[in-house]
């Protein structure tokens, strides 16, 4: 069979695919073995085709499938959405969550108890907002009155205690006063006890004044500095 370079190029793929007849294949091979151009060409194309066929597909970007599904099915609200909505369930067993729940429950219990609605006599009327506000108001006033009574009692006790304490006698001759302890330094000289007994002040009046004077003495040379600080603000 007569074969030439043009025929070799035309039938090259048929040869590589193995679809040439036996006679054609023999003529093809015979030409290539003697032709300086066709021999290397066939070897090169054969190698290239083999290499191409050995290559796998190009890997797609990782987000491609998700994007396609998003485009076609929309935002995926099926399983993942449900899973996201129930994600808080396992967190119940975390210590912080449990502590939070216990603290909130204890706060509610304390508030409820202080309002006067004990768990023993809980009725529907207790849950009426008007009754609850009234109960809270009453409880607040009671608490304030108790606190005021307690402070007044303390004042009376302090007053009685201070009167029962023996006053140090004043020496007849002027002598150097013994150095008072550091905390006494802050207090101004106590008023004359006789004058005090003649003209008694109301209970509790003397203490705050003395305290205020002591505080002023401690913080000053003058209240101007304090005022300057405030004004400078």
């Amino acid at each position: 069979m007569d074969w030439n370079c043009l025929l070799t190029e035309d039938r090259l793929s048929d040869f590589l695919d193995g679809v040439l007849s036996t006679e054609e294949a023999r003529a093809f091979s015979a030409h290539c073995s003697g032709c300086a151009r066709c021999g290397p060409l066939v070897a090169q194309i054969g190698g290239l085709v083999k290499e191409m066929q050995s290559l796998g597909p190009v890997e797609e970007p990782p987000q491609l499938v998700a994007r396609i599904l998003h485009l076609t099915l929309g935002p995926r609200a099926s399983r993942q959405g449900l899973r996201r909505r129930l994600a808080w369930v396992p967190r119940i067993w975390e210590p912080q969550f449990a502590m939070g729940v216990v603290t909130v429950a204890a706060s509610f219990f304390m508030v409820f108890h202080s309002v006067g609605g004990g768990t023993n006599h809980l009725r529907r009327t207790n849950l009426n907002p008007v009754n609850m506000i009234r109960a809270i108001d009453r409880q607040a006033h009671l608490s304030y009155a108790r606190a005021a009574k307690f402070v007044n009692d303390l004042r009376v006790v302090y007053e009685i205690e201070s009167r029962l304490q023996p006053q140090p006698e004043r020496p007849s001759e002027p002598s150097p006063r013994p150095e008072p302890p550091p905390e006494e330094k802050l207090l101004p000289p106590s008023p004359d006890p006789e004058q005090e007994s003649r003209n008694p002040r109301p209970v509790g009046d003397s203490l705050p004044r003395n305290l205020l004077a002591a505080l002023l003495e401690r913080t000053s040379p003058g209240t101007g500095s304090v005022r300057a600080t405030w004004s400078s603000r």
Partner: protein
Amino acid sequence: MEPDAQLVQLCVRGDGPAWEKLVRRHARRVFSLCYRFTSNRAEAEDLSQEVFLRIYRTLSSYRPADGAFPTWLASVTRNLLVDHYRRTRRDRLTDSIDDDVAKLERMRSPERAPDRLAEAAELSVQLQHGLARLSPELREAVILRDLAGLDYAEIRLILQVAEGTVKSRINRGRIELARVLGEMGLRRP
């Protein structure tokens, strides 16, 4: 594993998970075709999305008697590639594979041990350079035959041309590719 035709039927009835399976099964094939043709990963990704969007809308028109699902998929992909090629013909140059050249340089660096994976990657990049220089008719024929592994009958269905034309294009495409690679100095003629 369910056959494609069965999944397609489920998809037509509105079965989301069946569609997801179909997408996962064929995404790589579609992307690979697009990338081999465009030589650009971003374009290939956009085109792949477009392909699946079109498939999703026209899924009910698929008839298993007309051919296998992958052939139909390749046909839709090819049509979109042709549209894309026509659309972008003016502003397209061969600069889109520059990032691959950089990768190729990294692969050739001496600190990287020459292993089979690197060799395959290098070959893949070289081929991409060569394919980018082919005319679209020859390029698609070579890609469908030698890289996508389709037979002549399937390619004839996809390209809608006579089988003789398919054979001729594949043959000419291979010879042209070898010549181009040789000219680029990537492969000895």
